[in-house]
């Protein structure tokens, strides 16, 4: 996305304004809350008191990153209409939440959980399960964070026409993010998400309007053009693509809902009412987010025919350039839109980082290194650990990997292996720790091996989904075969926590 004619100084001004607003929000959300830095749930879960507006926007801005635009439009461009799957796989996430969020919310409030690991530890009381799940979740989060860092640099460099070199852009925005997160924790993350989410929503609408303007406002013309020139992108997809579509629904649905930061948003809800209201609204977001981005990608086929894989990655920048040239209104809207992309990436990265820190605080340090440390100390360890992790990841980010979508699938493969133990454990009392451990381990090994040996999909089915299937089988069969001993089952008073009628 270099050589954007519309950017330069104007871009720098808008980015600076955004950065200052974020810092102010962070400052005010932390101000006057003396308890914030002395309590794990205060810092990491906003005191379990997020209201509807903050909860909805933090769900939205965390789930939809800048990558949703910068990475998905090119995928739509390359694959054509079968990329409609992006609307359905973002929608199904809410369906998967309905499988476990209602009960997990109640249990988390009763037991004051801070991280997803708290639930697994409570349920299975197994060091092996706890450690392995911590590893898988931190791995997934780290990879996800890395992806966001790479994307921030690309977006800023594109927007400012290379005025701000890639490395400086990343460092500045990471510092802004670290600063507001340090000051306000989850509260700052959620409140900045409100601003970042609104900018992203408006940006996508204006961008689509500009794109449609460029093709004469007629989408039918676009499909006619594709039918004549690239019919493959329009016809009913091959069976393997449909299988892959099913597989994506499973992988993204289970993976995205079990993300530690996603789970922690369930914990952070002020009440069941705000949680379900937020989810109900979230179910409508995919059509007006990934759906509009899909249309942008399709319009791109007509506007910029014949781009190769690397060229198509620049699609959003190319298009923004053309849209900005329409008139003064679009010029400024495009600059704000690109600022919105950066804001959207930050809003995802901050949530992931916070979750990462919370696991260092509560799980690694609090469970294994120094369980008796004060909460203030635990929070500090997480904050500092998070900063160290960020700079380690930055070091890796200087050599950005290939296309964004590739890493998007990769991060799910291992993380999703936590799902069977996590969700089955809520409902099936017989589910035992050992089978859960072996299921998770074998599933992760299978998924990892398939990916590493180049078999990312087999007949369209992702390695992660195959690993998950093995994982489920091991969990279920193993638990049926393992004799129920008194140690392995939960005590009566602990079971009461899971009983909703109690």
């Amino acid at each position: 996305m270099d050589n954007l004619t519309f950017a330069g100084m104007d871009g720098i001004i808008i980015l600076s304004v955004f950065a200052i607003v974020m810092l102010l929000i962070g400052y005010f959300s932390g101000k006057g809350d003396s308890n914030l830095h002395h309590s794990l749930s205060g810092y990491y879960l906003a005191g379990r008191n997020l209201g509807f507006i903050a909860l909805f926007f933090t769900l939205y801005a965390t789930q939809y990153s800048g990558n949703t635009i910068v990475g998905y439009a090119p995928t739509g461009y390359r694959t054509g209409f079968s990329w409609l799957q992006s609307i359905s796989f973002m929608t199904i996430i809410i369906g998967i939440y309905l499988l476990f969020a209602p009960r997990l919310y109640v249990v988390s409030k009763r037991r004051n959980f801070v991280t997803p690991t708290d639930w697994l530890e409570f349920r299975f009381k197994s060091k092996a399960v706890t450690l392995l799940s911590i590893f898988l979740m931190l791995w997934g989060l780290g990879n996800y964070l890395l992806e966001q860092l790479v994307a921030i640099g690309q977006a800023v460099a594109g927007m400012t026409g290379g005025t701000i070199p890639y490395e400086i852009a990343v460092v500045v925005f990471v510092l802004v993010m670290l600063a507001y997160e340090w000051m306000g924790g989850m509260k700052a993350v959620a409140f900045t998400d409100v601003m970042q989410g609104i900018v992203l929503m408006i940006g996508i609408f204006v961008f689509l309007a500009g794109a449609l303007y460029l093709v004469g406002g007629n989408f039918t013309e676009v499909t006619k053009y594709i039918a004549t020139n690239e019919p493959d992108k329009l016809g009913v997809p091959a069976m393997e693509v449909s299988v892959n579509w099913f597989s994506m629904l499973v992988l993204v649905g289970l993976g995205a809902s079990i993300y530690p930061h996603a789970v922690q948003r369930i914990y952070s809800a002020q009440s069941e009412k705000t949680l379900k209201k937020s989810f109900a609204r979230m179910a409508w977001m995919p059509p007006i987010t990934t759906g509009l981005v899909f249309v942008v990608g399709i319009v791109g086929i007509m506007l910029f025919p014949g781009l190769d894989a690397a060229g198509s990655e620049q699609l959003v920048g190319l298009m923004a350039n053309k849209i900005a040239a329409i008139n003064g209104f679009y010029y400024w809207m495009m600059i704000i839109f690109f600022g919105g992309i950066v804001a959207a990436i930050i809003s995802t990265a901050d949530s992931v980082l916070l979750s990462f820190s919370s696991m260092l605080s509560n799980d690694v340090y609090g469970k294994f290194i120094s369980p008796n440390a004060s909460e203030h100390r635990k929070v500090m360890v997480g904050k500092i650990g998070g900063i160290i992790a960020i700079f380690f990841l930055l070091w890796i980010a200087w050599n950005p990997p290939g296309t964004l979508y590739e890493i998007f699938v990769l991060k799910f493969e291992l993380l999703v292996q936590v799902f069977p133990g996590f969700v089955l454990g809520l409902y099936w009392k017989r589910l035992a720790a050992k089978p859960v451990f072996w299921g998770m381990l074998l599933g992760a090994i299978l998924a990892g091996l398939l990916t590493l040996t180049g078999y990312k999909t087999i007949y369209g089915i992702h390695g992660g989904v195959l690993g998950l299937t093995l994982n489920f089988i091991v969990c279920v069969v193993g638990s049926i075969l393992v004799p129920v001993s008194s140690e392995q089952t939960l005590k009566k008073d602990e079971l009461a926590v899971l009983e909703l009628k109690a």
Partner: protein
Amino acid sequence: MKTKSIKEPIRKKWIWVLLFINVVLIVPWYFPEGAVEPFIFGFPLWAFISTFFTLVMGAYLSWLCISQWNIVEEEEEAAKREEEVKHG
């Protein structure tokens, strides 16, 4: 709290059967490969139907959240009202 008022999606089989059917209808496996015509609002038929069922799924899930999920809401809202009375 009355036991009767508890609504938890996992306990209702029909929710998941309908969701499964919905998903099966979204993925275009049941159309003849490569077919394009006819066009509806600029979308090839299969894409139009797939999108339609995706929107149905969004509406369905949104409705489920509001109407089929009620575990501690009354308890919490009552506690909140009490709190407000105390401080108000």
